[in-house]
C-alpha cells in the first residue's frame, strides 16, 4: 500500500476536491456495484450505498487526528458491505450470505458514529424545512452557498447588510429552537 498516495487521496477528500471524488468513484464504483448486484440489489441500491460510504469516508477524513489503518479501497469495500448487509436485513430479503469475502475491516464503530451524524443531519434538515421562507433561503445563502452579507442584502431586497444580518439572527434563533425541540425528543 502506497501510504503517500492514500494520504493525498484522503486530504483531497477532506478539501472536497472534485478530482479526488471522481478518482475514488472511478477506482471503486464497479467493484461495489457488482458486489451489490450479486447480492440481490439493483444499480440504484449500488448508487445509494456508494454515496453513503463516501460520506462515511468524508466524515472520517475530516475528523482530527484521523488515520486509516488500511487503504481506501478496502475501507470503502468494508463499509459498503456492512451497509448493504444491514439494509438486506431491514428489507428481509436476506436470501444469500455475501460469499465473496475480501480482506474486510471492522467498521462497526465508524458506522455507529456515522448513524448518529446522519440522524443529526436529518433533524437539522427537518428544522430547515420547517422555518419557512424567507428564512430558509436566507440561511442557505449564508451558510451553504457562503455568500457575503452585502450580496444577500441585494438579492433579498434588504436596504443594507445590517438589516439582512438582523434578519439572519432572527431566523437562526428560530432554527435553533426547532432543532433542539426535535433533538431532545430524539435522544
Amino acid at each position, binding site marked *: 500500500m502506497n501510504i503517500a498516495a492514500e494520504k493525498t487521496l484522503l486530504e483531497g477528500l477532506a478539501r472536497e476536491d472534485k478530482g479526488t471524488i471522481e478518482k475514488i468513484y472511478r477506482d471503486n464504483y464497479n467493484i461495489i456495484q457488482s458486489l451489490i448486484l450479486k447480492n440481490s440489489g439493483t*444499480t440504484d441500491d449500488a448508487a445509494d450505498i456508494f454515496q453513503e460510504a*463516501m460520506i462515511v469516508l468524508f466524515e472520517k477524513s475530516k475528523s482530527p487526528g484521523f488515520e486509516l489503518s488500511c487503504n481506501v479501497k478496502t475501507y470503502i469495500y468494508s463499509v459498503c458491505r456492512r451497509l448493504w448487509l444491514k439494509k438486506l436485513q431491514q428489507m428481509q430479503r436476506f436470501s444469500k450470505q455475501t460469499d465473496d469475502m475480501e480482506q474486510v475491516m471492522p467498521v462497526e464503530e465508524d458506522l455507529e458514529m456515522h448513524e448518529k451524524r446522519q440522524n*443529526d443531519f436529518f433533524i437539522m434538515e427537518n428544522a430547515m424545512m420547517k422555518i419557512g421562507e424567507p428564512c430558509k433561503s436566507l440561511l442557505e445563502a449564508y451558510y*451553504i452557498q457562503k455568500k457575503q452579507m452585502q450580496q444577500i442584502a441585494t438579492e433579498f431586497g434588504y436596504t443594507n447588510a445590517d438589516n439582512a444580518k438582523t434578519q439572519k439572527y432572527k431566523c437562526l434563533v428560530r432554527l435553533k429552537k426547532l432543532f433542539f425541540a426535535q433533538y431532545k425528543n430524539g435522544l
Partner: protein
Amino acid sequence: MDDILLIDAAERYVKGEMTAEEKSYFEELRKNNPELDQSVVEHIFFFNELNKYTDTRNFKHNLNETVAKLTNEGFISKAPLKGKAKIVYMWNRSKRTIAVAASIAGIVSIFIASLISMTSNKAPNTTTLLVEKLDERLDKQVDKTRQIERKLNTLAAASATTPPIEIKPSKFRATGFLIDNTNNFIVTNAHVVREAKNQLIVENNKGQQFLAEAVYVNNESDLAILKVTDRAFKKLAPMPYSIRKTNANLGEQIFMLGYPKSEIVYGEGYVSAKNGFRMDTIYCQLSTSANEGNSGSPVINKNGELLGIITSMETNAAGVVFAIKSPNIYNAVEEVKKIKDYEKIKITSAPSLKGIDRESQIKKVQEYVFMIKGN
C-alpha cells in the same frame, strides 16, 4: 448581554474569528456567569451541528455532480439488466399476460380501427399541435415596439462591417432548447419548422433575436434540429441538464419551461403514461397544462435529466399533453452526424441541477430555452 450579541459572539468563537483579547474577555465572562455560560455552550453546540450539516450538504451536492458526470460518460450505468438476460426475464414473468393479450388482441384492434375511422370522419385530429399562430392585431403593438427597437439596432449596427439582415415580423411562436453549446444546435418540433416559410428566428430570455436554419427535419418523429447561424450569438456554457437515454418512468415528477406567451413560463406535472396518443411509442403522456407556443419545450425531472419535448395535447381531455421521449434526440443527432459540415454535432452537458432547489434550477435552465419564431 443581548441575545443577538451572544449568538454573534458564539458564532465568531466557533469560527475562530475572535482576536486574542476578545477571546480572553469572552472566556472570562463565561467563567463568572454560569447562566450565560450555559447558553453559550448551547449556542456553540448548535453552531457545530449547523457546520456539520452544511458540510454534509455541500459534499452531497459535489457527489451528485460527480455521479451525473460519470453517468453521462457512461461509466456508471443505470440500466438494470442488459441484453438477453432481460428479455428472457421479461418473457418468463409476462408469459401469462401475453397469452391473454393475444386472445383479446383481435377485439381491441377492431375497436381501435373503428374508432379511428369514426374520429377521422368527424374530426381529423383530436390532438392539437402547440405552435401559436400569432394574431396580427393582438401582436401589432408588440411588433411596433420591436420594429422601433430593430430600427434603432440597425442604425447602431450601420457602422458595423456586415450589413444586418432585416428580421421580419413573426407569424408563429414556439419553443426550443440547446443541445450542443459548441456548435449551437437547438432542438424543436418538426411542425414548428414547417411554419417558417422565409426566416427562422430564435430569441433568448433576454429578448435578443438570432437567425437560425433547420439542418434536420423529421416529420415522422416530429423532431427538428436547428443551427444558430447568426454570428452575434454568444456561446453558452455546456447545458446544466443531461439528456436521458432511457424512457421516462411512470409517475416521475417533471417541470418544463416554454414560451406560450412572449415571456418564459414555468409549468409542473408528472408522467402519466409511457406511450402517447393511440399508443404511439415515440411519445409519452404527461399530466400538466400546456398551451399553444409550448411546442418544443424541454421536460425535465427533479434531478435535471431531460426526459422529453412537449409536442401536442389532447383536445378532448384537459391536462393531457404528449411529449417526444428523449432517446429520440440521440437518434436525430446520429442522423445529423451523417450530414456534410455537421459531423461535429455532440450533446454537450455538464449536469449541475441535482440536489438544488427548483428556483435555482430554473435560473440555470432558462438561458438554454429559446423562443422559436419565424415568418
